[in-house]
């Protein structure tokens, strides 16, 4: 399995992650190596039809639906990089960028 620079660029876009052009070849090589390595699990025929593993309790449990005090020591305004009047501030949305995906 060989991953190309273009594929890394595409995946980085899906992951909302800036990746510099200079690091693309190295990332592509490392991802190819890892994907080659993990491909070995496809050689185990016995796994066909096996129910996929799910950890934890068999069924999701729910808490009682009760009103409780706000569990945080302080509010989001203390954490926010930018905050005004109860809102997180971010730059404008920009244009939709689906065309090249």
């Amino acid at each position, binding site marked *: 399995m060989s991953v190309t620079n273009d594929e890394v660029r595409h995946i980085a876009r899906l992951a909302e992650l800036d990746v510099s052009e200079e690091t693309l070849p190295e990332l592509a090589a490392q991802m190819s190596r890892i994907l080659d390595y993990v491909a070995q*699990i496809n050689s185990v025929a016995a796994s066909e039809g096996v129910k996929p593993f799910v950890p934890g309790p068999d069924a999701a*449990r729910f808490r009682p639906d009760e009103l409780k005090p706000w569990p945080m020591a302080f509010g989001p305004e203390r954490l926010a990089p930018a905050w005004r009047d109860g809102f997180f501030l971010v730059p404008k949305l920009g244009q939709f960028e689906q065309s090249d995906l």
Partner: protein
Amino acid sequence: MSDPSDALASAKAAADRLVKVKRLNACLTPTTELRKSLLAQAQLAHPSGVLYGMPVAVKDVICTLEFTTTCASKILEGYHSPYEATAVSRLKAAGALVAGKTNCDEFAMGSSTEHSAYGRTLHPFDKTRVPGGSSGGSAALVAAGAVPAALGSETGGSVRQPASLCGVVGIKPTYGRVSRYGLVAFGSSLDQIGVLGRSVHDAARVLSVISGRDPRDSTCEDRDSLRLPTVPESLQGFVIGIPKEYFPADLDPAVRRACDRVIRLFKEQGAAVREVSLPHTPYAVATYYIIAPAEASSNLARYDGARFGPRFNGAADVGALYRTTRGMGFGTEVRRRILLGTYVLSAGYYDAYYRKAQQMRALIAQDFRNAFDRGVDLLFTPTTPTPAFKAGEKLSDPVAMYLSDIFTVTAISLPIGRVKGLPIGGQFIGQAFLEDEMIEAAYALERVVPSSEEV
């Protein structure tokens, strides 16, 4: 330290010891802040608590109110959590003192504590080597004698491996034994808080305090906290399985000698020893390499510079803000895993990778059940194939640093000997939720194994 008459004296002594080991870069909390906090906590500690006055360091992926929680990442630099982990609340309720935040691989991704945005942690016995990881800071602090116990977390060996390399005890509880509330998520289906301690007893009593049901974590099992077993006279009655796949031809000879010595001790102590097979072991690392990055790519989507953490400014629109913040905030290893995880979850690949890996995982889990169903109480294996390796030695190869034993239900690593001064660890693997039985055997082995002698 189990019941000091003066928590204040304990806090002062802990602060002094933590200053002494500063050169290890194992603790991320500045020493003056740490001292001040320890003294303040000592004033408020519950004297009737079972851990009264005991300083316990906490891995930096576990939320605390006292100190920042950065996950050793630039993307959470200076982050103060507005809530604390259930495990930390329980430690404090038992009278323990939160003794700072420990260094680790960024977001717990790594096995050497070299992938920290705040510099690597040194091995306490040899500064040219790594302490293991990702809970390397916790292991190094315990090994250096700065704290009797520390919390770590494990997704694929991150408690046991550093415990083994540093010569301390490490317990990885069964998934669901300890609440994950307040543990920053990496691979949610694998993550579990664990304990590192200077002895089996220190680690076990901390585990006992932090374990048990928690309505804030729906994956935490509805069970009471772990009851500590008594120290047994011998291993009489135990059937211990030795999985042959964990003793490959290229196993380090000193590690093999140390394990052989332990197996002789088992027999002398009255245990029955049997060879067993876990045939899907060779596929465990590949399986981990799909599941953990897939879950990480999803979990780490929340770090985008919009709601918390630093923001790398100058972005023209919100998409650019996300990409710049994430591109600059995450380190190399984390970026690599996010990309890999996004790739295996992307359209057309899900069935070939993630679903297939979860099927593989079911087969691996079945291997363990089969061994236990055939009358084996516990398994024993080397914890790591070699002692601590040199810093930088395994950085270039992306698949070199993973353990193969990542689907064990519960396990405890303890020191079983040394080679050229470096610790060697061995581990018991126990059945799901039978930590007490496993700890009982570890007590017995700890008493007889010459853990500080060369093999």
